[in-house]
C-alpha cells in the first residue's frame, strides 16, 4: 500500500482523534458512563423478564406491595438518564477547561448553571423535565464548548481578581472565577431574555428540531449503521483506535435513541415495539463481539483451521487473545496476528462487521428479535450481552449465535490463506 497515502491518512485521523473539542465531548460522555449504566440496569431490574414460572417482578411486588420496590429503580432513573443534559453540560465543560489547564470545576459549574437558566419552565413554575435529559443533549454540548472558551479567555485576561499570597488555593480559585462567571451568566441571561421576548421560542426547541432530530433520524438507518461499522474498521486496520476517534460523533447522536427505547420499555412497552433499531448497544452486542472486527469469530476460526500445529504462530496469538477476547478486548489479536496493515485480513475484518450489521438490522427491524433496551458495559461477554440487551430475550442470544456462525465461516478462508502466506514466507527464508 502506498506509504505516503498511509502516513497522510494516519496523520489526518490522528488530528481528528486528538482535536481538543472532540476529545472533550468524548471524555465528557465517558465520564457519565457509570451513571448511564446504573440507570439502565435499574430499568432492567424493574422490568426483569420471567424465568419460566418464576416471575421476579411479580414476586417482588408481592413482598413490598405493588410498585413500591420499583421506586428505587425509578429514582435512580431520575437522577441519571432524566438529567443527562445537565450532567453533560458539566462534564464536557470540565474536560475542555482541563485541556486548557484552567479551572475545570468552575467551568463545569458555570456551564451547568447556564444550562438550567435556559431550560424552559412549565406552566406551574417547575423546570420542564423533558429538556433536562437527552433531548437537551445538543444544547448542553454547544453551551459547554462556547462558555468554556469564553471562560478560558476571561480567566487568562485582566478581568480576574488576584488574591494576595497566602490565601488558600480553593478560595483564590473561586475569586478568580468570580468575574468571568458573572460576565458569562449575564450574557446567557440576556440571550435567554432576547429569545423569549423576540423569538418567543426556547433555544432548546430550536436546536432540537434543527439539529438533533434530523441527525437522530439519519442515525437510525441501515446506511448510517454500515458507515459507522465501515469507518471504525478502516481506522482499526490502520492501527488506530476507531471507536475512540469516532466516539465524539457517535455518542451524542445515539445516546438519545437508546434513552427513548429505555424510557418506553420502562413504561411497559415490549422490547419488540420500542422505536429505534440502531443504537450503540446494538453495535456492541450484535456486531463488535469480541471487539471490533468480531474478532472472537476470528479466534474460533483459527482454532478450527489450525488444530494440529500447537506451536503455530496464529494459534499462539489466538490462545493469548482468547481470555481478554471474551470481554471484547482485542488489541492482542489486532496487533499480534496482526490485522493491522495485513492485506489478507483487510477484507474479512471489514466484510464481517458490515455483514453482521445488515443481518442484525434486518432481524430487529422485521421484529424477529427484540430491539435494544439496555446499556451494558462494553466488556460484557457475548451471549450474556445478547440476553440482557434485549431486555432478557433468548432471541437476542440466538441472533448472536447466528452472527458468530456467519462470522466464523467468513473468516475461515482468510485464515487458511493467511496461514499459507505465512508458511511460504517462513520456508522462503
Amino acid at each position, binding site marked *: 500500500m502506498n506509504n505516503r497515502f498511509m502516513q497522510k491518512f*494516519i*496523520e489526518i*485521523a*490522528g*488530528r481528528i*482523534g*486528538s482535536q481538543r473539542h472532540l*476529545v472533550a465531548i468524548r*471524555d465528557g460522555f465517558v465520564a457519565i458512563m457509570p451513571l448511564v449504566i446504573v440507570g439502565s440496569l435499574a430499568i432492567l431490574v424493574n422490568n426483569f423478564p420471567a424465568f419460566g414460572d418464576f416471575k421476579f417482578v411479580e414476586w417482588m411486588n408481592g413482598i413490598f406491595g405493588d410498585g413500591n420496590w420499583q421506586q428505587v429503580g425509578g429514582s435512580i432513573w431520575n437522577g441519571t438518564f432524566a438529567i443527562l443534559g445537565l450532567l453533560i453540560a458539566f462534564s464536557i465543560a470540565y*474536560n475542555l477547561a*482541563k*485541556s486548557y*489547564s484552567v479551572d475545570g470545576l468552575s467551568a463545569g459549574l458555570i456551564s451547568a448553571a447556564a444550562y438550567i437558566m435556559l431550560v424552559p419552565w412549565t406552566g406551574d413554575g417547575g423546570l420542564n423535565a423533558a429538556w433536562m435529559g437527552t433531548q437537551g443533549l445538543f444544547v448542553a454540548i454547544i453551551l459547554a464548548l462556547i462558555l468554556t472558551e469564553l471562560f478560558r479567555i476571561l480567566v487568562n485576561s485582566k478581568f480576574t481578581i488576584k488574591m494576595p499570597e497566602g490565601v488558600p488555593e480553593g478560595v483564590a480559585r473561586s475569586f478568580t472565577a468570580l468575574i468571568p462567571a458573572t460576565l458569562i451568566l449575564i450574557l446567557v441571561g440576556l440571550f435567554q431574555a432576547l429569545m423569549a421576548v423576540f423569538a418567543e421560542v426556547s433555544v432548546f426547541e430550536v436546536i432540537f428540531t434543527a439539529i438533533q432530530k434530523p441527525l437522530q433520524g439519519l442515525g437510525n438507518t441501515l446506511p448510517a449503521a454500515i458507515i459507522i461499522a465501515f469507518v471504525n474498521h478502516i481506522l*482499526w486496520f490502520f*492501527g*488506530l*483506535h476507531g471507536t*475512540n476517534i469516532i466516539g465524539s460523533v457517535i455518542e451524542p447522536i445515539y445516546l438519545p435513541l437508546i434513552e427513548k427505547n429505555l424510557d418506553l420499555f420502562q413504561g411497559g412497552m415490549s422490547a419488540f415495539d420500542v422505536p429505534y433499531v440502531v443504537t450503540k448497544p446494538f453495535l456492541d452486542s450484535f456486531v463488535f463481539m469480541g471487539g471490533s472486527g468480531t474478532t472472537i469469530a476470528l479466534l474460533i476460526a483459527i482454532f478450527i483451521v489450525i488444530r494440529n500445529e500447537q506451536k503455530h504462530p496464529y494459534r*499462539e*496469538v489466538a490462545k*493469548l487473545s482468547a481470555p*481478554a477476547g471474551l470481554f471484547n*478486548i*482485542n*488489541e*492482542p*489479536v*489486532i*496487533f*499480534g*496476528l*496482526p490485522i*493491522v496493515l495485513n492485506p489478507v485480513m483487510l477484507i474479512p475484518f471489514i466484510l464481517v462487521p458490515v455483514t453482521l450489521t445488515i443481518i442484525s438490522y434486518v432481524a430487529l427491524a422485521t421484529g424477529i428479535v427484540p430491539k435494544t433496551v439496555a446499556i451494558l458495559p462494553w*466488556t460484557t461477554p457475548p451471549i450474556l450481552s445478547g440476553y440482557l440487551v434485549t431486555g432478557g430475550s433468548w432471541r437476542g442470544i440466538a441472533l448472536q449465535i447466528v452472527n458468530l456462525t456467519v462470522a466464523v465461516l467468513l473468516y475461515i478462508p482468510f485464515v487458511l490463506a493467511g496461514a499459507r502466506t505465512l508458511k511460504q514466507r517462513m520456508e522462503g527464508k
Partner: protein
Amino acid sequence: MKIILVCSAGMSTSMLVNKMRKSAEERNIEAEIKAVAESELKNNMENLDVVLIGPQVRYLEKKIKEQVEPKGIKAAIIDQMAYGMIQGDKVLDQAINLMK
C-alpha cells in the same frame, strides 16, 4: 526508573504492564510502571523517565513528545508486535534502550 504507558482506555495495556513488572522483578530492576490515559499524563510527570505510547494511539506521538521531551523524558511508540503478543520483557527492553 519510572515508565508510563499511554493508551486509550487503559484496558489492554494494563495486561502488558503486569508482564513488564514481572519481567523487571525477575531481572532485579527497580521500576515503577503504570498505564494511564493520555489526559492523565500531565499529572504523572514527576520523576518520569520514559513514556511508551500504545500503537493504537500512535497519533498522539507528536503531542506527547512536545509535552515531555523538553523535560528530558524519552517517548516512543511501543513495538506493535511486542504489544500485541504482550511481550513484557521486550517492551521493558525498549524502555531501557530509550534511556541509554
